[in-house]
């Protein structure tokens, strides 16, 4: 990691859990694991693309980065010099022997965005701006364009009052608008123009990093192309870094230097754009690529889609979280009792006759049925083709005792992110070998 450039943003094992509250007293009954241990770096002048389906936590990361949500766990560091990054990595590897404690302390107090205060935090806010997806709701309908774009300048007292308007015009010109647009309301503009106003507002304070949360998904292709070109030009002129959040793979391929693919709050694959598109390692990335119609040149190729719904992020699957939809799942993917129960959806009578479930952990459970016949039927069902072969193999023990069925699986650790041959990281048991 002997890079001469600064690292603008470094996410270290970031977690964001949202509590589920229930009842009159709003007792916390569970946690939605929206973001569950995400790490990646954004270098100066670099674009990192964050891809995934809706609900995978990509927008939550954007909000955490811009300081809109406090973190549950982990750290986000802002603007690290190469030496600091090395020191930080060293510190994480050898927790016990702290060589340069003063440097770590300095990093923590000046760069960790959840710990910095006062002027440092002010400085961070200036340098990290955001552009939202829906320009209808992110621009105040009652403010003029001149107010919207000059507001950051006023708040951060960047320029004198008499310079405000010339500076605002300058900003508007940079995004392809002009003087004539100053005294209009957002509703008088088209979608593409409103997105330009959002970008102008984000540029006002000359930030180092812009978080772009689906900036073009509400736009038509011809306008989308205009906005993407604009973002590209601005990056070249000002050396901006982008965190580009989108579900559109063809857009990300055009914009990003590095890609992070997320699934259920976890990174499943990360690496250079060319590597991931040329040789995707994780089955989820492969499925996403296959499902995007505008990426493949071969029109007739099968859009091999994924089966089934995304699992509940309040109870994410153990082991590999993608295995419930994975086309190439293995025995060692970490199958658990919930998988059997999910499969029972096709056997209504069986699932209706379950009286209680006693589950000490994810891999062991005692299911109590109303009749012993149902218990035997469950065992039969588990033996049939309804249950994938890999899952059947993973069952360690299944025994019927009267109305009860005891099921146990081999416990499996969460699959780690490992480096694959082409240098990208992927979280899959197949890559582990």
């Amino acid at each position, binding site marked *: 990691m002997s890079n001469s450039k600064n690292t603008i943003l470094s996410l270290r094992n970031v977690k964001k859990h949202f509590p589920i509250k229930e009842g009159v007293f709003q007792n916390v009954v569970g946690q939605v694991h929206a973001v569950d241990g995400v790490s990646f770096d954004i270098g100066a002048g670099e674009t990192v693309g964050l891809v995934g389906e809706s609900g995978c936590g990509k927008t939550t990361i954007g909000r955490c980065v811009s300081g809109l949500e406090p973190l549950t766990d982990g750290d986000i560091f802002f603007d690290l010099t190469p030496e600091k990054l090395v020191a930080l990595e060293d510190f994480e590897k050898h927790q016990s022997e702290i060589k340069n404690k003063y440097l770590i302390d300095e990093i923590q107090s000046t760069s960790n965005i959840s710990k910095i205060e006062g002027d440092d935090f002010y400085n961070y806010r200036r340098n990290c701006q955001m552009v939202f997806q829906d320009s209808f709701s992110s621009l105040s309908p009652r403010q003029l364009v001149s107010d919207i774009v000059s507001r950051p300048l006023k708040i951060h007292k960047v320029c004198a009052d008499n310079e405000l308007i010339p500076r605002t015009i300058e900003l508007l010109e940079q995004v392809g608008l002009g003087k004539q647009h100053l005294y209009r309301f957002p509703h008088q503009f088209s979608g593409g123009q409103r997105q330009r106003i959002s970008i102008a507002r984000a540029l006002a304070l000359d930030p180092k990093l812009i978080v772009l949360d689906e900036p073009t998904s509400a736009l038509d292709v011809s306008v989308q*192309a205009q906005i993407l070109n604009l973002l590209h030009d601005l990056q070249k002129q000002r050396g901006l870094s982008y965190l580009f959040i989108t579900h559109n793979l063809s857009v990300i391929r055009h914009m990003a230097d590095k890609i992070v693919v997320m699934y259920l709050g976890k990174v499943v694959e990360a690496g250079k754009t060319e590597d991931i598109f040329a040789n995707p390692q994780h089955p989820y990335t492969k499925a996403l690529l296959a499902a995007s119609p505008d990426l493949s040149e071969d029109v007739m190729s099968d*859009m091999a889609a994924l089966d089934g719904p995304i699992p509940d992020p309040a109870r994410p699957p153990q082991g590999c979280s993608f295995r419930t939809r994975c086309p190439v799942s293995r025995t060692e993917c970490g199958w658990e009792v919930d998988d059997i129960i999910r499969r029972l959806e096709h056997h209504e009578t069986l699932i209706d006759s379950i009286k209680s479930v006693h589950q000490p952990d994810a891999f062991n459970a005692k299911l109590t049925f109303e009749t012993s016949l149902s218990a035997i039927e469950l065992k039969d069902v588990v033996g049939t083709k309804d249950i994938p072969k890999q899952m059947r193999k993973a069952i360690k023990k299944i025994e019927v005792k009267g109305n009860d069925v005891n099921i146990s699986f081999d416990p499996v650790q969460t699959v780690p992110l490992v480096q694959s041959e082409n240098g990208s990281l992927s979280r899959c048991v197949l890559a582990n070998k």
Partner: protein
Amino acid sequence: MSPDNLDIQNSLDKDLIASVTDLKVYFESKQGMVHSVDGVSFDIVDGEMMGLVGETGCGKSVTARTFMQLVQSPPGMLAGGNIKFRSKNIKNGSQVIDLLDLSENQIRELRGERIAMIFQDPGKALNPGLTIRTQVAEVFQEHRENDVLEEAGLKNKLTGVTEYFVKKYIKQEAGFLVTTLFKIPPLSTYKKKIDSGINRLVAEALEETQIPNPTKVMERYPHELSGGMKQRVMIAQAIACNPDLLIADEPTTALDVTVQARVLDLIKELQKRHKTSVLYISHDLSLVRRICDRIAVMYAGQIVETGDAETIFNQPKHPYTQGLINALPSMSHERGKLEAIEGIVPELIEPEPGCRFVSRCMRRKANCEEIDPKLKPISEVNKSHKVACLLYEA
């Protein structure tokens, strides 16, 4: 105008299911008439998938809604043209009708029965206050009372007043008196049979769209289902009566890519199995290319180019189509350099004559601003590939 359009009113080429000719739909506004759809003509070949592509506000949804007379009037206004449709009712044989001439009652019989529609946002199109069962059952109750009777085992078994009452009950037209009568025997036994018959029909329809566990899903409310499932329910509703024409108005825009792929597969598969014709409306060119046989590209209320999906993609002729295809970030482009179409879509309020694309066109000629280009075949050889541009007029 081609000569066959001058023929007698109700004629339609044998291989076509529907034909739109010079359709004009305007909307009143304070600034003047908005020409949303301004002289649109295209044909839908029987059993094929026709894609209607264009950007926001180009009039593609209005065109689709006109098929079912769903454009609200006022402010909407039909300013001309006709839509011929071949209704293949099994009883009466097929007949050609003009959809725009029908009365409210006549079009009501066709909606859901011969022409069905899938809307963009299933969350909004489904009624949040009714169970899935009630909403899908409505289609059968409205159009398929004989099927319901047969499924309930009551066909040809009822006579006189009883039959009248039962049919009223199925059609949900029963008033207070009949509803009360259905609470006491012997009508209450029929009620049970009819309800379970409807349940079976609904479950079958849901099963066809690969919804797991249909009898469970039936009892749920729309908010309990995921986006993909809701869209499947919509599709089940649409194909329940095996319509001749299915209009899909951006059915996958609100869905994730992986779910989108599933739903597309499903629509394609159902279309093949039932030999339904589909009018597929989308803003996504590359998606339409994947699933449609023919494409019509719309811009500012007019069709600028139409032809086979592959021809449109490989040899686009109209500058707008070329621009759209180049603006797609695809594998063949340099990173960071996209050929955007500069400028914005023109206002459609009382438009001037001349090509609508002229202000954004890179290849405009001197007379483009004066002459309205007509949709004409590009060559003598390929009659199906038509383009509306002066560049290709001799």
